[in-house]
């Protein structure tokens, strides 16, 4: 077994473990926003770890550049998706407010609504 094999043997199961625990969170967390966190981010960590592990098994460094590209895409797309999911979930009102310690966005929306009323009256 070469050093590359050892790296792969560590990185692949580690990545899969992140994906698995993230999914456990997706099943067990009581709030939608919590589930958004659990579904989007650990999967990104998992994919990047697995890509890194796979890179050690490739004979050609030029091909490994493709894997780097895939990781880069994941880093670019994951936050966009997470943010979109969060915003849409919030705007649809599918947030269980009982699980929030504070919600300063709701406070701000409230305030701007009051301002509008003040202007109108």
């Amino acid at each position, binding site marked *: 077994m070469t050093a590359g094999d050892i790296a792969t*043997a560590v990185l692949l199961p580690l990545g*899969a*473990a992140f994906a698995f625990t993230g*999914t456990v969170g*997706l099943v067990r967390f009581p709030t939608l926003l919590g589930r958004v966190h659990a579904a989007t981010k650990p*999967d990104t960590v998992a994919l990047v770890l697995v890509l890194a592990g796979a890179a050690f098994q490739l004979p050609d460094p030029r091909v490994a550049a493709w894997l780097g590209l*895939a990781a880069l895409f994941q880093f670019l797309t994951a936050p966009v998706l997470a943010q979109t999911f969060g915003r849409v979930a919030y705007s649809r009102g*599918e947030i269980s407010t009982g699980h929030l310690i504070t919600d300063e966005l709701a406070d701000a929306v409230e305030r701007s609504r009051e301002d509008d009323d003040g202007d109108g009256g």
Partner: protein
Amino acid sequence: MNPLDYAYTVTFVLLGAAVLLTLYRLVRGPSVMDRLVCLNAVSVLLVTFIAVEVALRGDHAYIGLVITFALLGFIGSLTAARFAERRAHDRG
């Protein structure tokens, strides 16, 4: 069996369990957003599967698939989420 084979087995078992759990949440819902989030998670997990396959075969023929799947999953999820937002607006 050499240690690398064990590593692949563990990886496939964990990823397979992750996909099954995600499908469970996908079926149970309860909200549309839950289902969208799950669909996206499944697509990322599929991409991860293909990446493991790349490692297993040491073959770069699948890497194109990795990138294509990742981008398609991204565009699909984003479009669906935007659509869900639009519908929420229409309802009031």
